[in-house]
């Protein structure tokens, strides 16, 4: 067990995967000498050489497309897209090619590609550096989508993603890269919680609060603040966005009768909409209030001086908890107004 930053935990997980399987190669812009703009691949090119850690030309569609070709050839490419906003030039290769190849070939071609994507906001960056594109990928059949929220999960989940024979979109909450946590390096991926599982991060009895990636920490803080006010919040870390592990969610909502989902991504057709609909179907008779979403607004990611109004913070989450509890708050009465 050692204390490690989130970024270092991914770096360590990548190193392990590369040691164990010579077919694992890393590809991306600036990942070699520089170690990536976030230094996640720091030192790996030095130790594994330029054919295992490949500085690619500045072309995202090219990176994804050649990774698919390498997968045909038996490699396990781990692709770094430098920032969320730069994944869109590769969108065709991801959703029309990578996601569908196994299906098209009736299982003859495996596509064990891991797409590492620093995502989300909160670091004061210029435009295109803070997007939350997870719904596009979770909406695409054929992709697995996961988002760790802490260093231990980052360490094991990256190894599982690489070991998976399916393409995995691995979402890294960039504003948590420097957060530290304990990591048990001896924990083999299989022995840890499977990357497809949701996790109860904190137990509680009044409200179920679901989040993933960067919002988990904010939700844990919210649970502490709520308990100061006498409300017991159960926080669930989704971990896998596709497929969603509904067991822990259903169990929790049956216990609390109330669901709040929080994410940075825009509200309309975001993950929260899907979770609310599914939980409503599965737990209708247990719900004591309609599921509540606390999300980014339906606006393009704003300039950095406005981003903290856009991102759900502790207070907006507590406001959502209040609503799920049916308490009077700023939005009381709005439901009747059409």
């Amino acid at each position, binding site marked *: 067990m050692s204390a490690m930053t989130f970024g270092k935990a991914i770096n360590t997980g990548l190193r392990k995967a590369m040691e164990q399987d010579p077919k694992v190669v890393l590809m991306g812009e600036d990942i070699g000498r520089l170690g990536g703009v976030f230094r996640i691949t720091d030192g790996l090119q030095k130790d594994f050489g330029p054919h295992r850690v490949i*500085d690619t*030309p*500045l072309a995202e569609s090219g990176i994804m497309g050649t990774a698919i070709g390498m997968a045909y050839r038996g490699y396990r490419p781990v692709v770094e897209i430098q920032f969320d906003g730069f994944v869109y030039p590769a969108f065709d290769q991801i959703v029309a090619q990578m996601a569908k190849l196994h299906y098209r070939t009736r299982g003859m071609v495996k596509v064990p590609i891991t797409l590492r994507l620093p995502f989300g906001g909160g670091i004061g960056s210029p435009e295109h550096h803070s997007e939350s594109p997870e719904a596009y990928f979770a909406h695409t059949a054929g992709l697995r989508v996961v988002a760790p929220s802490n260093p231990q999960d980052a360490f094991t989940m990256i190894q599982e993603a690489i070991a998976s024979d399916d393409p995995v979109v691995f979402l890294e909450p960039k504003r948590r890269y420097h957060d530290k946590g304990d990591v048990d390096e001896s924990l083999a991926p299989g022995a840890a919680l499977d990357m497809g599982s949701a996790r109860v991060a904190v137990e509680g009895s009044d409200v179920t609060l679901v989040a993933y990636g960067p919002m988990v920490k904010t939700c844990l803080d919210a649970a502490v603040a709520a308990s100061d006010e006498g409300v017991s919040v159960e926080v669930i870390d989704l971990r896998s966005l596709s497929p969603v592990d509904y067991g822990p969610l259903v169990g929790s909502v049956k216990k609390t009768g109330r669901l709040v989902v929080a994410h940075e991504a825009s509200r309309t057709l975001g993950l929260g909409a899907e979770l609310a609909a599914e939980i409503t179907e599965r737990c209708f008779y247990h719900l004591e209030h309609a599921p509540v979403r606390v999300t980014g607004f339906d606006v393009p990611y704003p300039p950095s001086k406005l981003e903290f109004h856009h991102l759900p913070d502790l207070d907006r989450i507590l406001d959502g908890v209040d609503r799920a509890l049916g308490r009077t708050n700023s939005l009381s009465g709005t439901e009747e107004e059409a």
Partner: protein
Amino acid sequence: MLTGDDGAPVQLLSPDGQRRPHERYDRLLADLDSDDSNALLALYEDMIVTRRIDAEGTALQRQGQLALWPPFLGQEAAQVGSAHAINRDDFIFASYREIAVAYVRGIALPDLMKQWRGTQNAGWNPFESNMAPTQVVIGAQPLHAVGYAMGVQFDGAESAVITYFGDGATSQGDVNESMVFAASFQAPVVFFCQNNHWAISEPVGIQAHVPIGLRAPGFGIPSVRVDGNDILACLAVTREALEHARAGHGPSYIEAVTYRMGAHTTADDPTRYRDANELEDWKGRDPIARFEAYLTGSGILDDAGRSQVAEKADAVAAAIREATIHMPDPEPEELFEHVYAGPHAVLERQRDHFERYRAGFAEHSNHAPHAALTEGGH
């Protein structure tokens, strides 16, 4: 190819500042060579001022006044020289690093900084300046330039379009697609590639196996390589290319061979990937030193002129600092503005909720938001 068949970049000023005659390009500098020292001094002033803006931007970022700054130190000749060739009714599509181009274009000083301070995504009105907001997504803007140029052509107008991008951008599909469109439609567009040798940590060799300027001819676009640290050469080749476009002869391509002497951005540490000797080598080819040597040698610039320009640079820097430091934060409600051109019911509801939510804090002003205590102030 327009010129540069031998691959050697066009040079009109030797590295020690001697004016070299050039059969093809002297025509394009006739106004400057004919004793019009004002025009030469204007070029010099813009180089000095923009270098000062660059230094001020870096300082402001270090002092927490800007979120980020992309230095263009070393690229003043390529940017100022080419920008001086652009007519008022020509349109510009550039990337984030073309701050000197924007300055020469006459973008107001505070507007240059808004994007970097994080108060707005686009700092100016593109139709007042005929310059699009600068682009962050690598390689997206050449397509816009070609589309605009197709419009110019279809309208029968006699203006041209210029698009700036880096050596890294030439790898993008979009940039290659833009050349396909430009050639097919013979659009009046100039592709201006600043090959500053680095795309963050990646040397230009990762993007191209031959000089980047050689790529355009394969698309049927004439191309020229120019010494990007020679302001007169940059001005001349860009004038020629824009004339070529305005005259209805179609697209052309310029590779300005220059060097990024600073970091990629203030978030970057070039010592991790760049050899110090390489930097020293390029410092020896400083574009301002070269031009200054020429101007001094030909008696156009003396100490008085130098200090006059330095004063102007200080004044611009002070104005930028003043504007940046006192730039107001946008109102929270601006979040919801301009998402759509027309009304949008769902967004209006979200805006209403947001306003009620915020009003809740105002009503209970003794109730400080929790966020301010925990996650605020990132």
